[in-house]
């Protein structure tokens, strides 16, 4: 390891930031894959993988990716919830890899809800 100069240190800081971006918690949006037994059986893992691929491919560091249990609509699985900063969460259902790509492009990157795949906007109320 050669000794760093100030410029090299700056560069290294930028690169290292990408390594730990998950820990910083500066997310602009959040994607939740529903992984109840129903979701897993319907292929939620594959959906999850294609999301992770998209995040990796685009080198995004401001989208939080997480998983949760069954959303209660087992017949509509695999499902995800996309929650972008400042707007209501959107649930997408019966997903395939192609649909994921489209949702990623249009909703997550450009900010437009893909209405044709959306199950509903908003969330249940917690009483």
């Amino acid at each position, binding site marked *: 390891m050669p000794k760093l100069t100030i410029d090299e240190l700056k560069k290294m800081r930028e690169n290292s930031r990408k*390594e730990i971006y998950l820990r910083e918690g500066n997310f602009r949006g959040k994607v939740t894959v529903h992984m*109840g037994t129903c979701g897993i059986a319907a292929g939620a893992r594959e959906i999850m993988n294609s999301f992770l691929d998209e995040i990796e491919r685009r080198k995004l560091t401001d989208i939080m990716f997480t998983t*949760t249990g069954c959303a209660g609509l087992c017949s509509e699985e695999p499902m995800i919830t996309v929650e972008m900063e400042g707007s209501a969460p959107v649930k997408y259902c019966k997903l395939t890899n192609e649909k994921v790509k489209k949702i990623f492009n249009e909703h997550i990157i450009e900010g437009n809800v893909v209405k044709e795949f959306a199950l509903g906007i908003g969330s249940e109320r917690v009483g």
Partner: protein
Amino acid sequence: MAEKKRIELMVCTGTGCYAGGAYQIIDGLNKELESFGLRDEVTVVATGCNGFCGQGPLMVVIPDNIFYGWIEIKDIHHLVEEHFLKGRPVKRLMFKPPEEKEPLPLLSDIPFFKKQLLVVLRNKGIIDPEKITDYIARDGYLAIERVLSSLSPKDVTDEILKSGLRGRGGAGFLTGKKWEVASQQVKTPKYLIANCDEGDPGAYMDRSVLESDPHSVIEGMCIAGYAIGSTNGFIYVRTEYPLAIKRMRIAIEQAEEYGLLGKNILGTGFDFEIEIREGSGAFVCGEETSLIHSIEGNIPKPRQRPPFPAQEGLWCCPTVINNVETLANVPVIITRGAEWFSSIGTETSKGTKIFSLVGKINNTGLIEVPMGLTLKEVVYEIGGGIPKGKKLKAVQTGGPSGGCIPASMLDSPIDYESLQKAGSMMGSGGMIVMDEDTCVVDVSKFFIQFTNDESCGKCVSCRDGSEAVLEVLTRISDGQGREGDIEFLTELGESIKDASMCGLGQTLPNPVLSTLRYFKEEYDAHIKEKRCPALVCRNLIQYYIDPNKCVGCLLCIKSCPTEAIKGESKYIHIIEQEKCHKCGQCLEVCPPKISAIIKITGNELNNLVQLTEIISCKEWKKDHEYS
């Protein structure tokens, strides 16, 4: 396949969790992740102390921020399958406040973390302390970069002076002022020492800083070295902190490799080297001049000041000694500015302070709070109150040099001046919470025993004075207290303060003086009535079996090591006081639903029924049913 890291498991490997088996947990996690094929997606990171030591071994799941505590090896398979494979967080391992039914999944919802403000511990639980790139990613070495490229030594000192940063090790001297004095000295070379000789019982702030973020101390030292014109730094740490030393060594090696320490740092021409010096854990070495003697290889005894170390210190050269926590504050002050720093805290105490919150408190751990927070907020909100519904009696701050602050003064803010006014001190940040079952005479005796052991023996007032105080306190707790003892303790305490040369002697009477000030009636009870109200002092208490409750189960008889309990099955048991050694074993084994054994003190025994002959429980009941 591209790397698709989606979860990071931040497992605490501070000394507490380490001892609790954190590395076994890490091994177990890696093994399970491997078998579920999740190694690419889920990474395990070994972090420094998370702070919530009472819950260890513990981890935080990133990015969801879910907190899991008290993890056992047997939980791991289930946890990995449920949460990391299927995405369903495991409630059972989440933190549940004692009175609540539902657990709090998110770290940010747990009251212990909510009121904290992290400045020094900004990287705790977020970085792997053994990885320099983690530190760099969190704006690490940004301050030294700025200092070396655009600030003069005077600019740096002025910035620290402006920030109002005061020493975090005890007396609270202005850090910038110390630097200024040292930088004005003509004599060279100059030295910088990071003081990590942390000796207060129950305190572990500095150790945790070294363990969880060693690079912040290195960076702080580089900046301090630059400001005072020193190229040599020492970290003085006790040998009994092996993990802190190990991580510090790794950090120094890495920093040297990256050109952030050593010759020509970042190509700017500034040289700075750091050496670790291990002390063998003498309390007096926390005192500046003793510490200097220890590094020089001499017997660690303090010397008269002035000249102050900043004028004449290590090998008679100008030397700045800063506490580890003080130094870890420095890089943040440079990157975020003195103005930002001085906006935190009170008029005279700026920034935050780390405390180790221990004793009779629900949430034991390491906390960092803004100066000026009240003791009440610390004890009840962060600490979660006193266990088992007991009442708070006092909070002891500042270790053996500090004092007890009574529950009635809980609203006083935590800052240098308020604590001093209350008869205690900030010290390095130990905070021991005491409940109603704590006897103040016993506590004072404990601390004086400690300082008496640790006194270097140079000053008569400290060496023999502590001996005399200890003798009187022992007498009082043995029930041999005499009229005039309190006056004697007060007078002697004041004399020790006046006549001792270093901080150890000057502060050692504090635990006694502060308890005499707030709990005089308890001393009186010991001396005049031979009573220990908290039921602690062995010679003043008795164990007693209530004949109305005893069912004659023999448990206490079997447990008594001195065979002081007589009785037979279904016959009321009787403790023979002259044989009893007051070990309390009988009280431990008596079943809670019976609770026949109680502790009493003073002459209470005279007011209770004292059986001489054993009598069957049945007979006793018959005789006393209608009475």
